[in-house]
């Protein structure tokens, strides 16, 4: 058990290291010369040389990689090329905004999906289940930005119920923020709930097909009680894995939605940094996204082990 967890942990750390190499290579070595991109075509050789020295580009890539990684681990993310502000001071407020939006969506989506999943397992192949699964197919098929745009058109531009853009979330007034972020949150619900509902349904149905549930049924235990006392707790392992996977998706998939609503989150920062070719910012945002994604994958992984008594006691 402990060994298994240890192995997963080591794997997660190795993946993170591999990610850092990929991010570094993608942003530092491939795009040719950052300096000419920064200074433009007309830069004098003198200027280019000074700039290279200033950015430390005269050193070999491997040395720069380790310096970059070391800086990352100690919290020194470098300076933005465009604004010259410390990367951490740019990134942290954006990270907060993204995490809060994701948390807002997760707090509503997780319990609601589990409830709907159990209900559609209880009424499997009946009208409720079929309707829900048809709606799900539509929701997973429509891209986030199209859902977001439709919501903006109907609920913001036409009905004036919610703001269409959120330049500045008002964190001092929680009630106001809940209203401000309603449409992005709703978009996230649409895109992530379908998956969680279907997995919950599948996991519960799996348990419902087991011998002890059949026995309970034969004994005359009411169906609702079987669902809640027997099926749901035993289905919790796979369900929570799916929840963790979806949180990882939520964090990285939120970028598109942030762009639609002009929301000052990390995803939009990354997209903007790419168009400005602001390498330190691209590196920092990409690393944070990858780290969060890997973290939630890791949680999903060990969650399915820890919560499954059979695997846990097997070793």
């Amino acid at each position, binding site marked *: 058990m402990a060994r298994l967890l240890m192995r997963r942990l080591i794997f997660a750390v190795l993946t993170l290291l591999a*990610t850092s190499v990929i991010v570094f290579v993608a942003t530092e070595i491939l*795009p040719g010369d950052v300096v000419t991109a920064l200074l433009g075509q007309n830069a004098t050789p003198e200027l280019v040389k000074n700039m290279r020295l200033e950015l430390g580009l005269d050193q070999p890539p491997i040395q720069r990689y380790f310096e970059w990684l070391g800086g990352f681990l100690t919290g020194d993310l470098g300076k933005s090329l465009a604004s010259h502000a410390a990367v951490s001071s740019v990134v942290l407020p954006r990270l907060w905004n993204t995490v809060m939006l994701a948390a807002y969506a997760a707090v509503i989506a997780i319990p609601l999906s589990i409830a709907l999943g159990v209900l559609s397992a209880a009424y499997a192949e009946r009208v409720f289940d079929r309707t829900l699964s048809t709606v799900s197919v*539509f929701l997973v098929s429509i891209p986030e930005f199209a859902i977001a745009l439709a919501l903006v058109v109907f609920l913001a531009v036409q009905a004036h119920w919610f703001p269409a853009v959120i330049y500045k979330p008002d964190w001092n007034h929680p009630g106001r923020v809940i209203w401000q972020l309603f449409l992005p949150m709703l978009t996230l619900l649409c895109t992530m709930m379908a998956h969680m509902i279907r997995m919950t349904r599948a996991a519960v149905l799996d348990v419902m097909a087991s011998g002890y549930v059949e026995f309970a049924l034969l004994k005359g235990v009411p169906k609702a009680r079987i669902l809640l006392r027997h099926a749901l707790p035993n289905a919790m392992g796979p369900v929570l894995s799916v929840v963790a996977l979806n949180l990882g998706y939520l964090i990285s998939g939120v970028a598109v939605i942030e762009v639609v609503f002009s929301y000052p989150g990390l995803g939009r920062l990354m997209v903007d940094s790419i168009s400005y070719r602001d390498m330190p910012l691209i590196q920092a945002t990409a690393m944070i996204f990858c780290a969060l994604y890997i973290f939630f994958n890791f949680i999903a992984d060990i969650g399915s082990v820890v919560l499954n008594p059979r695997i846990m006691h097997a070793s």
Partner: protein
Amino acid sequence: MTAGPISLQVKSASLRFPPVLASIGIGLVGLVVLLAVFGPWLEPQSPSKLIGGAFDPPGATLLGTDVLGRDVFSRLIAGARLTLFVTAIATTLGFAVGAIWGFAAAELRGWFDDITESLVNILLCFPPLMMGLLVVSALSSSLPVLIGAIAFIQMPRVVRVARSVAINITTMQYVEVARARGEGLFSIMIHEILPNSLRPLGVEYGLRLTYSTLFISGLSFLGLGIQPPDADWGGLVRENLPGVQLGVYLPALLPGLAIGLFAVGLNLIVDWLGKEGARPISEELR
């Protein structure tokens, strides 16, 4: 060929006329494919020609004009062509490489299989959208890079599915017989594994197509996919966003709707194909 592989799949029941939802799916996908293929003859205008003012309402043209005064309907058809082109090529490429790799891992086992498994596990740990953004920012948003990136992102998922499907097949007696007969790796992959894994692979191919469509649309919507003046459906949504503030919704909403309907169509078909004992459709939608 004597004693060919025994076909275990395709019960006659599965060849019945598709149910309502699947028929709708086939209709939607078929419509988009027809639009893409016969687009050049269907477009009333050249998709890049300025024919009026910005955001003219429908009337003179079927769906009005876009942000620069080009025909919305013609651009929608041209967008179908580009979206479908990138999606089909990228998915097929990633799928072919992934399937061959997965089959080979299942048949060869040993160190090759071990390396495959670790590599796939690592590749699956990267958030796809972020990887796509990184690749595009490092290289360029040219068509070959976009197609290569999407194919590469799909590949590990296909390897995993192909391997797990093939592993059940490689333990069958007819594969042992084939080996004893002296068939090589490629012969076994083509004559034994492939015919017996068509259904699960078909389901997976459909899923990957949906995924590629959403992925390229998302990239283009962010401005990092297909570059103007060409536009796929995601790019069309992006370029017509200014209209939303002016109260002109159709040019931005229609391409979004088109992506949705195409992906819904694909999903309905996949759902139907996967009904018989295959894994849940939504399992790897991201």
